[in-house]
């Protein structure tokens, strides 16, 4: 009797679990979704509104095999306006036939005008709270241009423009380190930190490039490319200024975010290229008579990438001289940007406050309240130490034996 009852119960429970386990209540069929790859925010048509821009994958065009010429564009960019970002997204139902799905979002773009005037704080909570959007999505600023404009631009190498922006940011970081993808969670982290200020990379569309450089089949909408810029420097949640791409690398040196880069070093009246392969910045804080001081120890490992002029790299002294010249170049670059940020922007974009907090928690308690002023007068010492390991496949420069005329 009991065995029969248990058997019956087992059958019933396994059958009922069939109803529960597939989660049919929340089913979303793939053909009812439109996958959003890029999300952006522009200023709205009126003061109190914002415009949200989305880039949606066109599945049938994106999956088209190579060689098959497709007349459909692989993505579609559209925008809706609303009082809040969430409301604006819901209004997308008026423009698209499918529900938007943010699980595969690649990049978030914010218009610079919006970030300068009204700040970014009201844009972020929805993205941080929503379970579909991940916290490790990079955020970038579109400087001087509408996100709509930037996202609609067809990239030449990638079929999807949002993906191309993401790869672009990564590539700039990994090969030249003059920009850095900043994740959504890092912004939240920084905004809630008592001292540090947000730094975001910015991008912009280049002016139209000449038609002749493109193959004839491509239409005019493809005729501009996205360019990575430097950093937008924030005070709290508003942009206070921009660090151009030539200065942005120094900021990465200070915050220890250098992957690879090329340092052009003047030596013997010629320009040499030092190929940096790794860099580590140690940040030390010390307090003397209540005054904080930061010591930056930059350790660079590099190779010689290009030796111009009559240079003999077989000599140990030449390499030592090159190392010294590199030290000087990097030190000057870093000190220039330190001065610029401290005197011009006056915001702790380097996270020096956190360095002091971690290393001198007791002194930090008194410094904390007046940190904005302390930062401007903060004493920072830079010490660069370069080690050149390899010189490429040749030792002496061929220019050493060139006919002197």
């Amino acid at each position: 009797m009991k065995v029969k009852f248990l058997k019956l119960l087992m059958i019933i429970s396994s059958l009922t679990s069939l109803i529960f386990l597939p989660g049919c209540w929340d089913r979303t069929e793939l053909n009812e979704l439109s996958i959003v790859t890029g999300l952006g925010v522009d200023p709205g048509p009126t003061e109190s509104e914002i415009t949200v821009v989305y880039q949606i994958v066109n599945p049938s065009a994106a999956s088209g095999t190579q060689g098959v010429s497709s007349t459909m564009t692989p993505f579609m960019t559209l925008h809706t306006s609303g009082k809040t970002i969430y409301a604006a997204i819901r209004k997308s139902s008026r423009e698209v036939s499918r529900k938007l799905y943010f699980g595969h979002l690649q990049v978030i773009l914010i218009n610079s005008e919006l970030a300068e005037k009204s700040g970014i704080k009201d844009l972020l909570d929805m993205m941080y709270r929503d379970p579909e959007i991940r916290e490790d999505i990079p955020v970038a600023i579109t400087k001087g241009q509408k996100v709509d404009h930037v996202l609609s631009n067809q990239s030449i190498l990638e079929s999807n423009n949002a993906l191309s922006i993401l790869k672009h940011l990564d590539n700039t970081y990994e090969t030249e380190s003059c920009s850095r993808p900043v994740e959504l969670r890092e912004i939240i982290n920084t905004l809630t930190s008592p001292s540090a200020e947000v730094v975001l990379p910015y991008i912009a569309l280049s002016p139209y490039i000449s038609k002749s450089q493109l193959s004839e089949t491509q239409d005019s909408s493809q005729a501009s490319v996205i360019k990575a810029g430097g950093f937008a420097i924030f005070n709290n949640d508003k942009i206070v200024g921009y660090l151009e791409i030539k200065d942005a690398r120094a900021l990465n040196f200070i915050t220890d975010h250098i992957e690879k880069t090329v340092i052009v070093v003047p030596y013997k009246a010629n320009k040499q290229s030092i190929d940096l392969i790794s860099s580590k910045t140690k940040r030390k804080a010390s307090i003397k008579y209540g005054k904080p001081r930061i010591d930056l120890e930059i350790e660079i490992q590099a190779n010689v990438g290009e030796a111009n002029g009559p240079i003999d790299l077989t000599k140990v002294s030449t390499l030592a001289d090159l190392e010294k010249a590199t030290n000087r170049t990097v030190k000057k670059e870093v000190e220039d940007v330190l001065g610029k940020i401290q005197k011009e922007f006056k915001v702790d974009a380097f996270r020096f406050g956190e360095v002091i907090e971690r290393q001198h928690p007791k002194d930090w308690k008194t410094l904390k309240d007046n940190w904005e002023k302390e930062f401007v007068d903060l004493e920072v010492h830079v010490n660069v130490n370069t080690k050149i390991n390899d010189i490429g496949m040749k030792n002496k420069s061929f220019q050493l034996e060139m006919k002197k005329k």
Partner: protein
Amino acid sequence: MKEKISSIQLAFLVINFTIGSALIFLPSSIVNHSKQDGWISAILSSLIGAVFAFIIVSLIKRFPNKNFMEILEFLLGKWFGRLIGLFYSWFFIHLAALVLRNGVEFVKINFMPNTPMAVFSLAFGIIILYTSLSGIEVISRVNDIILPISLIGIWLTIILMLPIIEPDKISPILANGIKPILRGTYPALGFPFAELVIFTMIIPFVNKQKNITKIFVGSQLFAGITLFFIVLITIMVLNIYPTEISLFAPFNVARLISIGDFLSRLEILISMSFIISIGTKLTISFYAGTLAIAQVFQLMDYRSIIIPLVIITVSFSFLLEEDIAEVISFASTTWTPYSFLIGVLIPLLLLGISFIKNDKS
């Protein structure tokens, strides 16, 4: 008592029970108070938890052939003992309802926002109905299979997080003195360590009582270490403030896993572990609750009250607390003194009484 489990099976049950819902909820409840020193609180609380475990197991060991309800009757007299026993039964069922609610909220918020809560509650309800009907032997054997799966999920997540940890997030150590650490330890004591009192109903089933103290305390410490690593990784990856404001902080951590662009979106690992351990915790609490009620009312067979109790537990799970804000505030304020009284103070008192009684006779 016909049913028997081995001491290893008990250890497995203790590990899964202690990790339980703490796997997802412990980091934010600790970090809320002790900030970057949360990991110290995690160690401290599991050490104090070991003392709790020791108290409970010593109490049970003094009465080899009695279970907890019989001990209560023996020490406190027939009627008062039964009254306290009823109080304990309520605690066990209440805990089951709360754990059920936690599990349901997790699935609902993260995966299926549009599904009514009752659907998940019922699904869990069917599981506890079936497992409690089958008895402790079956529960332990199932647990033998699913605990390793759960532990693999947890440890794999911890290992995969190693590339993106930032160790300096936990410094400065002890910046604000010892007080915040103790404040952070406090909620962790009530949840999950004081809840171990439920094993007063389970320990008597173990066939060899010889090494029971070592095994019980040891397995509690193992679970404590696992929870410590979870707290540590969460702080190192998410930083302090995001950990505080995240409802499911370790789940958020797991979402960040990305190794070489292809090994990503592995949060399902930790979700799997969480569902497994929450299922076990729920089952043990409910099973202990039914046993306790059957004992208090001197029923011949505890099975006769399972179906009504399942209905009660499932309805409690969404009637006791109206919304998620209430779930959070109850867990952070009321729960600790409540479970502390039942899980530590009363057992300690009973232990004292048992020594006095022993001296008299």
